[in-house]
């Protein structure tokens, strides 16, 4: 194995280590949020944002999406986000179950 290859490999592993430490820190942050004295919805949104950032980092750097062609990156992001947003249509029903209005009785 050449020295250049070794150097390139250790450079890439160094970059992976930085992303790994960031992911560990973000995962730790979720645990800190879990013990904050805030209401459930605030806690949910904070954790969801942190999880989203974690997922973005993992996809872009661990799954190498950042180094793929831009067309493919856009395809994955736009398609996935569209379907995920499409799944959110039922929340009004969920809140209606809580409030018991207007048709639950």
């Amino acid at each position: 194995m050449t020295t250049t290859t070794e150097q390139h490999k250790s450079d890439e592993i160094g970059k992976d280590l930085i992303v790994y430490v960031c992911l560990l820190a973000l995962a730790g942050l979720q645990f800190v949020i879990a013990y904050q004295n805030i209401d459930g919805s605030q806690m949910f949104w904070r954790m969801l944002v942190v999880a989203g950032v974690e997922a973005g980092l993992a996809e872009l750097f661990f799954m190498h999406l950042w180094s793929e062609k831009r067309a493919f990156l856009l395809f994955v992001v736009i398609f996935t986000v569209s379907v995920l947003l499409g799944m959110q249509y039922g929340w009004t029903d969920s809140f209606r179950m809580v409030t018991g209005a207007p048709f639950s009785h």
Partner: protein
Amino acid sequence: MEGHSTGVTVGPAFAFPTKKLAMWLFIIADTMTFAACLVAYGFLRNGTPNWPRPFHSITNVALMTFILLTSSLTMLIGLRSARAGDKAGAFRWIMITAALGVVFALLHVREWLELIDQGMRLFKNPWGTGLFGASFFSITGLHLTHVTCGVIALVTVGVRYKGGRYNADDIEVLGLYWHFVDLVWMFVVPLVYLLNLTH
């Protein structure tokens, strides 16, 4: 029509290796499956007033998270080694990843057994609505199935890579799957565990 006889070269979609594209399409489809489960879970949790909060400690889930994140790093090092032509190193790191996957699965099973021991079943539990058990076991069970399949795939691909039947591209494809399993866990932990802690 034979491509080489006409001189026409048809490139793969997105100029992507076919196996990698297939794995990405699987991952996108699987994202929908997990998202549907988590959205359904959120729907039920939001609409059920007496939702149970059975988790007293975060030690086990924190350890599981650490192990899974670390396994993603070891998978990456395995891939880097394979790309650099270090076959023995790549095999070693893939096997370490598989071992971490096994430890994660064992911790998961231990946690399940503790909850079952406390009286939690698929449709009933001592703390509140029975929907909790169904949703908890479904989501974590689906994830555990993915981890188990991943471990089997890691060992299979690792051994075949060592034997010369697979190459670094196959390890990259498998790595995509393993990182995806890790990525899903990042959403399962806050929604299923941390929001259900007893304070």
